[in-house]
């Protein structure tokens, strides 16, 4: 029995030391030097240095003067994150989407883009498609009394267009830029 016991216990402890402690510590050390912004959560700070969120984590935006984020099944909870997990055949899904479409529908703009009606996998999706932003643009422009052209320029600055993925707009970055350009009257 001891022929197996000693190597089993000592190797699990050694592997714990190597892969459970040394490995994450080395990666943390290199990461904190090479990529400090990302390693600490890609935080967005205001002029006073106060943390206003992470560029990777969606926030709830309410009211006409803001671009709204992708809907969240967990109401933008970060601990713990969550999804609706509604099946395509679940009547509750169709009900929720139809209700939400009735609220957001604008006749001049046609059907509501699906990403404004569906909740994401994480509940914290920081992005929307350019079409979903364009759908909201007239409302935000009117509320902030901005020309749509000025707003479109801001949208383009917050748009990512990777070679291997769909184009997306970071809603938090866009709203932060919007707030610098033309603060919403509180």
């Amino acid at each position, binding site marked *: 029995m001891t022929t197996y*016991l000693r*190597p*089993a216990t*000592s*190797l699990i402890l*050694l*592997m*714990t030391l*190597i*892969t459970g402690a040394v*490995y*994450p510590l080395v*990666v*943390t050390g290199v*990461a904190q030097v*090479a990529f400090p912004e990302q*390693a600490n*959560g890609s*935080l967005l700070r205001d002029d006073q240095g106060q*943390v*206003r*969120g*992470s560029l*990777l*984590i*969606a926030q*709830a935006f309410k*009211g006409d003067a*803001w671009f709204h984020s992708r809907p969240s099944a967990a109401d*933008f909870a*970060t*601990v*713990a*994150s*969550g*999804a*609706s997990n*509604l*099946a*395509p055949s*679940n*009547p509750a*899904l169709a009900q929720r989407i*139809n209700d939400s*479409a009735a609220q957001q529908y604008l006749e001049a703009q046609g059907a509501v883009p*699906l990403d404004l009606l*569906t*909740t*994401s*996998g*994480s509940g914290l*999706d920081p*992005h*929307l498609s350019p079409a979903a932003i364009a759908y909201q643009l007239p409302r935000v422009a009117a509320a902030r009394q901005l020309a749509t052209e000025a707003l479109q320029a801001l949208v383009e600055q917050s748009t*990512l267009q990777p070679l*291997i*993925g*769909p184009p997306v707009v970071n809603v*938090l970055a866009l709203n932060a830029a919007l*707030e610098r350009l033309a603060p919403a009257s509180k």
Partner: protein
Amino acid sequence: MHSYDYAVLLAFFALVLIPAPWLGRFYYKVMEGQRTWLSPVLGPVERGCYRLSGVNAETEQNWKQYTLALLAFNLAGFVLVFAVLLLQGYLPLNPTHLPGQEWSLALNTAVSFVTNTNWQAYSGEASVSYLSQMIGLTVQNFVSAATGLAVLVALCRGIARRSASTLGNFWVDMTRATLYGLLPLCVLLALFLVWQGVPQTFGDYVHAVTLQGVDQTLPLGPAASQIAIKQLGTNGGGFFGVNSAHPFENPTAWSNLFEMASIILIPAALVFTFGHYVKDLRQSRSIIACMLALFLIGGGAALWSEYQANPGLNNPQVEQTAPLEGKESRFGTTASVLWTVTTTAASNGSVNNMHDSLNPITGMVALVNMMVGEVIFGGVGAGLYGMLLNVLIAVFLAGLMIGRTPEYLGKKLQAREVQLLVATLLVMPVGVLVLGALAASLPGPVASVTNPGAHGFSQVLYAYTSASANNGSAFAGFGANTTFHNLMLGLGMLIGRFGYILPVLALAGSLAMKKSAPLGENSFPTHGPLFATLLVVTILLIGGLTFLPALALGPITEHLSLGF
């Protein structure tokens, strides 16, 4: 589909298939103790491990000794994780003061990580401390994958060696697989992921005030280092609850591509490692062709299915396009489906979209990938030893058809080998159909179902398939954290893991002892298109015949009732 959809498909296959032959040769050299360019750095660490554990790297073990060593090591790992999860409330590196896990949850989690399943009945950011993530879960991510690799090379040696009584040394195989096989790749991937935006810090959760003045807690932690091994080791257990859908786990389309390719990078390479063991790379090519064919059949069906708008949402106010519920904007449909197919083909189980919300046929592809026993690339080591079992079954069937004693690479398959093969055929049916039927028919356990109709049955079926196949993905609406499911799914995971490992090692021992007969003119060739086709058909028939009735009750009924 847009140009970026084709680009991501192309980039994915290039990242997996181009390095595979080279990486496969590297693994062969490492596992046989030959010098590589990493030896100057890792050699002293490796020898230090043996000295401190009293292991003589020169001695070899027969199959029984090898099995006992493996079981002792897995048991020690289980005890450690179980204890850490129960006691994390009293241990350091717990910035949010999380209490210990409830006993059945801790048991389920420990079994889950030791068996390379990484089924998660908990949400990482809300119930596991940094310490538990590191010394409990990350460590098992490494050594469970290393255990799979060790079993595979033991089987490779069993097939390649002639009249031999030993299969290698488990302690040495496990150590080499961890140090050379997994660690270096993980460091590279982890740093790439941090660059893309994955946190890697020991700092506390950060408090933020949103632009509209709401308090927000941002969970952080040493995430990148764990995500790297959870992908490369085909583990799949997320650092955060929603796994690779979480923007901190998978922030960009590029992080997504690399995490996805990492799932089957090593399993694809190991097919070539096998070719080096048996000194015949034609065998590797026919096996990888079979894996690719099955992958493409499933992938094609899943893409076709997921690009169809949900007929249940036919409303002029709603954009009619591919469903987006449970998907992230930055991945889109193609990269979400590709991930789903990859993670279930390999026994990874991480998700970048919520499988519960997939169209029925897409969900069925995920189920079938698991039901055929995770052999389409499959888990690290586990995928190929599972596939080699199917190869032997195909050889046996061919032997029956041409009326000769079946033989594989010069080794005759006799009664004992066939008995062991049949034993492994029972693993998935017992885990999925017996345990699943129990869960689906008892009133208490069935309360975990959260979607109505046929999909509700699919949720139970998916949970028990995922556990038995050691996958770990879920139809995540299923309320798995009950004492019944924690214990039954834990049992399913143990059956699914050791129900293969024990017969495989016995088979390896039995094959190693055989003399090798030279291949004659009448031998059935186990390379080339004919054999690859036979292998594909064998896998689909065995899986299909066993599980078709269950699939008809779940996803197929749901598909038809939705009116696609």
